[in-house]
């Protein structure tokens, strides 16, 4: 059992992180905490990508005379792009949150929903 866990530890790390993020998205009533949850959720997937790029005994994929093996650079590049995407999502989410706060005066989901129900 211990070997089973240890052999694939990077998956356990990324799945745990992902579920922590997912929990925050679902269970936290505060909108900013939801955004933090989304960030953790995405970062977990980034870690997964980086972990699959590792080559045994490989060095960072930078041109270097003494390097024999390089790690696979492609996932690194993909994740650089995905990080940019994630930053943009966070920015849009924060911009929305600021406007929600101006309109509703609160960031707690239950209070916002109560305000909406009275509206309908």
């Amino acid at each position: 059992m211990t070997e089973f866990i240890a052999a694939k530890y990077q998956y356990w790390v990324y799945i745990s992180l992902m579920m922590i993020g997912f929990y925050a998205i679902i269970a936290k009533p505060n909108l900013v905490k939801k955004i933090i949850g989304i960030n953790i959720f995405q970062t977990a997937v980034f870690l997964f990508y980086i972990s699959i790029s590792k080559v045994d005994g490989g060095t960072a994929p930078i041109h270097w005379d003494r390097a024999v093996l390089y790690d696979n650079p492609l996932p690194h590049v993909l994740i650089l792009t995905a990080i940019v995407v994630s930053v943009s999502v966070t920015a849009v989410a924060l911009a929305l949150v600021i406007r929600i706060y101006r309109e509703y005066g609160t960031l707690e989901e239950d209070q916002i929903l109560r305000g909406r129900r009275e509206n309908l």
Partner: protein
Amino acid sequence: MKVRPSSNPVTETVSALLIPFMQLYALYLVAHGDLGPGGGFQGGAIFAASLILRAIVFGLDAEEERRYESLGGSLAAAGVLLYGGIGLLCMARGGSFLEYPALPFADPKTAYHLGIYGIETGVGLAVAGAMLLLFMKIAGSRDD
């Protein structure tokens, strides 16, 4: 940033010393991007960070806020247009989109390097502009 933060000689001196070096480092990263770690995204982010540091430490008055925002917008648009422009230039010269060797330089190798510099500069401008714009939209006092 409606109120100018209380001036603190330590942060002000350190930032004043740091900002030019940050900007130089940002330029180095952009220029170094095609051969080693670095590139437009990192360079642009650090360049924007230097301007944001200035805003946080020294504060901005209304006029400066307006200027920061318009600077952010124009940098972002200029960056995207530079990127797209280089791509379109490659097309106009008979290559495909971003096929640098098609650029009008002496030999394909030079064209390749200069093409990547151009692209990295475009990315850097766009990232720096977007970060400035985001900072101003989120922390600024202008409401629109």
